[in-house]
């Protein structure tokens, strides 16, 4: 078996940290999503988290809710999202892609069919926000048997006993939610995150990425000192939402934001 794409990216990173941008698929349409994925890669993305739009995104703040609503205006489906990944793979075989979303579209499609289509499309991992490890055995089995990684969340409120349960099921990376709140919330405490990430990393060899509340180059750089990867979402989705009518500005602004984070993260690692 060849090494999985996510593991390969972490292995190849060396001292550098992975940059993991998130955008919602189909916002405002899938053609734009495909083009944006390539822009993210040019700007320095290692892994792309691609959001599956859902009508009731309970763990997301207003920015990603609005993105879901824009995507669903065009009836973007889970199958279409995976077809978009397949098209991305025609020209990019290196950047890892993780689908992130809620259970119900996956339930509707069926676990086995979902896992099969995802594997065929060149998806590397799956993160379902509202599926804790307690409920995940069946889906994890379908995904793992097709060499797909199962990314799970850890939060500031996760007790140690549950962490072990998450480690037993997780692969690819652990997504540490940096704050108590929904996506796009503002109260990021870098020191607290560093302490917690260190604590997590002392118990598992799975890489740890940190997300929620990272909104600029400075916060990305600060978090990258503690984590193996930095996930950034709402601030990018805002850019897509703001420049829906003007694709050139959308791409340029997104590139500048992500590339700025990339440069700041790399600069920190070099000086350190």
């Amino acid at each position, binding site marked *: 078996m060849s090494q999985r794409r996510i593991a390969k990216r972490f292995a190849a990173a060396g001292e550098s940290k992975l940059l993991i941008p998130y955008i919602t698929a189909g916002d405002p349409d899938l053609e734009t999503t495909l083009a944006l994925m390539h822009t993210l890669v040019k700007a320095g993305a290692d892994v792309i988290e691609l959001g599956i739009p*859902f*009508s*009731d*995104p*309970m*763990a*997301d*703040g*207003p920015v990603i*809710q609005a993105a879901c*609503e824009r995507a*669903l205006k065009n*009836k973007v*489906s*889970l*199958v279409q999202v995976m077809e978009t990944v397949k098209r991305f793979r025609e020209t990019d075989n290196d950047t890892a892609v993780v689908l992130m979303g*809620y*259970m*119900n*579209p*996956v*339930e*509707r*499609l069926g676990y086995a069919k979902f896992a099969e289509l995802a594997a065929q499309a060149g998806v590397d991992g799956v993160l379902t*926000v*509202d*599926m*804790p490890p*307690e*409920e995940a055995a069946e889906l994890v089995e379908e995904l793992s048997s097709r060499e797909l990684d199962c990314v*799970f*969340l*850890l*939060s*500031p*409120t*996760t*007790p140690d006993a*549950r962490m072990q349960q*998450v480690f037993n099921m997780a692969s690819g990376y652990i997504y540490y*939610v940096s704050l*108590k*709140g*929904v996506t796009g*919330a503002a109260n990021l405490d870098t020191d607290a995150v560093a302490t917690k990430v260190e604590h997590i990393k002392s118990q598992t060899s799975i890489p740890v990425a940190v997300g929620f509340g990272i909104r600029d180059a400075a916060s990305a750089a600060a978090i990258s000192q503690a984590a193996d990867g930095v996930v950034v979402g709402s601030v990018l989705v805002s850019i897509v939402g703001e420049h829906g009518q003007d694709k050139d500005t959308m791409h340029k602004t997104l590139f500048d934001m992500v590339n700025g984070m990339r440069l700041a993260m790399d600069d920190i690692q070099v000086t350190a």
Partner: protein
Amino acid sequence: MNTATKPADAPAIGSMSDNYPDKNGHFGIYGGSFIAETLMDPVSELQEAYEHYRKDPEFIAEFEWELKNFVGRPNPLYHARRWSDEGEGAQIWLKREDLNHTGAHKINNTVGQALLARRMGKKRIIAETGAGQHGVATATVCARWGMECIVYMGEEDIVRQAPNVFRMKLLGAEVVPVISGSKTLKDALNEAMRDWVGNVDDTFYIIGTAAGPHPYPTMVRDFNSVIGREIKMQSMEHMGKLPDMVVACVGGGSNAIGAFHPFLDDKDVRLVGVEAGGDGLETGRHAAPLSAGKPGVLHGNRTYLMEDDDGQIIETHSVSAGLDYPGVGPEHAWLKDIGRCEYVAATDTEALDATHKLCRIEGIIPALESAHALAYAAKIAPDMSPDINIVVNLSGRGDKDINTLADIAGITL
């Protein structure tokens, strides 16, 4: 038919059911805890607290005291004689939850959860509401115990249920309009969950229906099971036997599960849940996931949902805001699959007809939600023998609906 031999089997009012789901809250394939990691810890804390206090005699005694002295229980089981006689069929009995303090069954659950919140040291209460009855019941208990109260309510529902919005504010609650999605109950629930994620340390989320992550479906059922226990005891008193059928409306299903649960082992008692048929099941414009939906995952549990082919939740339609919800409590989903309960639907028109009929013939203005159960009873009773007893759970009173009724009649109040 049932015989009059088993009054002793009816558990004492206030005792908690032992018919628990599995330890992770599954009713068959339904239920569970499908929530983001940030909520797992507060939900576990709640599971442990509830598991402890549901067996605590002091907690049960305080709950019973509140039900008697604050809520005004027991409420009557009333024989609707004129209606029964007019149909020349089965006898119709009304369980008068509309006579509870705040005018609906919702207060049973909010009293229970507020007592639990107090014991857990949580001082900030959040809730979602559709028709506003649960919001009012939550605002009421928060005022009763001096707790901060924030109620999330869809912008659409705020317009439809203006009197209840004002009642909540009178009681000192903050009503937060929800403008996301379809701006109704499901979106209010999303918003309350988001609040909870951000404020897990000091906040208790009082969910108003028998849905959500474990232990909510069980807890809400237990706090409402006083309805079914009273029906049992009062049926023995009035009829000398158990009823032949218990009928209740089902939105999320809290009044129905409360009325049904104590009867689950009494196999001769038919239990019928009536969903909101809206414009008719065939139109797709309804709120009847058990009758016309599919299993899926929403709001923390697996259950029957109104969804499209891509698994997106679709907008529901019902004349009654309280039934306008795309999911249903997981225990109902399970009871449907195992065949213990039957689930049917009544349309908006049938519910409105039943409302007017009850007003005129019995002098009771029912909530539009409860009128769905009345409509089904009215439909089947005339074809049944007069020695058959049907209990309809009159889950709430209709004062909150007078604006809706006036609008439909083309009258400006």
